[in-house]
């Protein structure tokens, strides 16, 4: 099996789906001839032509507005927003239009599209090349939200997202775009949306995370095992909406302890929902409060980003608090 990084996996998924389904088109800033500032669409214009893979003017609200129209008229657009930090000019088109199209039309009009966008920090991108806006979209009924953490899932989830009949926000963990490498089967395969994966089994505590924080959580679990003989289970959610509650509850009921890790600011982040639901549904199994290790409630800093981002040290501290509660 070839070893791909996440960029290559995304690129492969796009190629395969474009070959399989001529309704799939790719648009966005610099995605055409240049192949995207992260090269995720490299080679697509050569293979599929400028009618199906094209650059757009610099206007996110135009990219998404036009993509919605394409979805309404027989295509399956896969627009790219160059950085998740730049998705907000399209926020109205996403939350008021794409998300509500099916519902507001009584189910008679659908809007199948996948908005690809790199998210998260760790690349010295400061305020505007580091954000993790997933909670905005999870809070918006009508959108699916996906966030892979490795090449295998990135390819399988993107193929599923493109075949899905709902608008999907596909958030790519840019910090590990190239760092995360792994074997990726050739040809088509899908990873089901809405299913989490237990990426490490354990009995003492459950770490719940997604995206670029998965390797960080795993590293923490490993050192905790070596240094303190702790048995930590790590769940990679993979899909944030709809998220895989059964897998989360099963694990937490087993371990009795949960720590949630994400890069986004804490207040009203996705971790808040997970903590609230776990407490609602598994309170009697909890031996400690559900803790959150997250980005701070500040804009994303530049120089000190490594202190802003959750790191093994901060996660370990939360684990300790939970265990010593």
């Amino acid at each position, binding site marked *: 099996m070839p070893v791909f990084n996440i960029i290559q996996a995304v690129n492969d998924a796009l190629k395969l789906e474009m070959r399989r389904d001529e309704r799939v088109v790719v648009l966005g800033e610099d995605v055409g001839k240049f192949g995207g500032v992260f090269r995720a669409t490299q080679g697509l214009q050569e293979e599929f032509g400028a009618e199906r893979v094209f650059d757009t*003017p610099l206007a996110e609200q135009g990219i998404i507005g036009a993509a919605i129209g394409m979805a309404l008229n027989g295509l399956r657009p896969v627009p790219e927003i160059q950085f998740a930090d730049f998705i907000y000019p399209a926020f109205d088109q996403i939350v008021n239009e794409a998300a509500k199209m*099916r519902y507001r039309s009584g189910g008679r009009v659908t809007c199948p599209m996948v908005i690809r966008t790199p998210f998260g920090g760790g690349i010295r991108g400061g305020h505007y090349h580091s954000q993790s806006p997933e909670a905005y979209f999870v809070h918006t009924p009508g959108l699916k939200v996906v966030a892979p953490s490795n090449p295998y899932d990135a390819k399988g989830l993107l193929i599923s997202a493109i075949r899905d009949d709902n608008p999907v926000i596909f958030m790519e963990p840019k910090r590990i775009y190239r760092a995360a490498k792994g074997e990726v089967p050739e040809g088509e395969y899908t990873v089901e949306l809405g299913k989490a994966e237990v990426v490490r089994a354990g009995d003492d505590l459950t770490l719940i995370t997604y995206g670029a924080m998965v390797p960080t959580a795993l590293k923490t679990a490993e050192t905790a095992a070596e240094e303190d003989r702790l048995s930590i289970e790590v769940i990679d959610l993979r899909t944030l909406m709809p998220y895989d509650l059964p897998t989360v509850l099963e694990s937490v009921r087993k371990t009795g302890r949960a720590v949630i890790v994400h890069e986004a600011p804490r207040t009203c982040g996705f971790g808040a929902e997970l903590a609230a639901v776990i407490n609602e549904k598994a309170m009697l199994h909890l031996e400690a409060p559900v803790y959150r290790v997250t980005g701070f409630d500040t804009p994303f800093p530049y120089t000190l980003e490594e202190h802003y981002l959750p790191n093994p040290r901060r996660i370990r501290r939360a684990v300790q608090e939970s265990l010593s509660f």
Partner: protein
Amino acid sequence: MSQPIIRILEPDGTLAEGAELPDISPKQQVRLFRTMLLNRRVDQQMIRLQRQGRIGFYIGSIGEEASIVGSAAALADSDWIVPCYRELGAALYRGFPLFDLFCQLFGNARDPIKGRQMPNHYAIPELRFASISSPVGTQIPQAVGMAMAAKIRKVKEVVLAYFGDGATSQGDFHVGANFAGVYRAPVVFLCRNNQWAISVPFSQQTASDGIAVKAEAYGLEGVRVDGNDVFAMLDQTRKAAEKAREGGGATLIEAVTYRLEGHSTSDDPRAYRKEKEVAYWKDKDPLLRLERHLIRAKHWTEQDRQQLDEEIKQQIQTELKRAERVGPPPLESIFEDVFDETPWHLREQWEEMRQLEEVVEEKV
């Protein structure tokens, strides 16, 4: 500087000098009038209904019928209509059943969109009439995307996008028009410049000399048309649609018209505009103008008119009665259509509600 206003019929129904009628049969001309009158009568009747508290809200197009029906009549049935919220006339021209309309206004169980949206926000995909949204201007880039899709799919569909003068101030108008220019999308932009955006007059909306002049900023053609002249609207929209269909790109049509009534039933225009202004435009009523022409041309008589009035009255009464009898949508419908399949959290929320249902039912 501002562009001349293209006109075919004078307010008195005579041909404007140098102008000639577009290619349209007497039967077609009458169909235009019938649709416009139906549009007018439905609006008037629904405004009454709202006052009686039988529907919650209504937004009509009294005074703007020609700009809407005339442009819609220029399309092929395979072309798309992407409305704002005031284009009932375009839907009626395509045969939108009054029963469906009334059920939507009541938001009842037979409402094709399941009582999900406010009155006037229907969606008629079977007539290639897009889903109506409230946010002003959002449909514009979507219409362009639909046109881009037609081009990519190599089908010769044209998309007609309606919006108001206020909508041209939105970012969505700008990005939509710019995309249309860059991709030579087969779209026709139809701006109903009815002089007002609720209480904001056109002079406060933009400093440009009309709307049509904005076309050049996008490499598009812009034309200014008397929006109360159904023939001029038909003719100019036809030219724009054919140009788009043949790959000539988009046109921005400014229909110069006027909103004779309040913005909606929630509005009282006397708070912000002069009766004199309204009276001036009442004289330019698009229905009068077309009917004068039809009579002069001997395609229409007083009698035809009385018959039609009666017919429409009956039709509205009958469909209204049927629609008003229908009950509300089932509670479970709240949880449908958020996604193609209902995920666990919505099934759970429905369960929560179901347990209270019987108690709740009586409250409906």
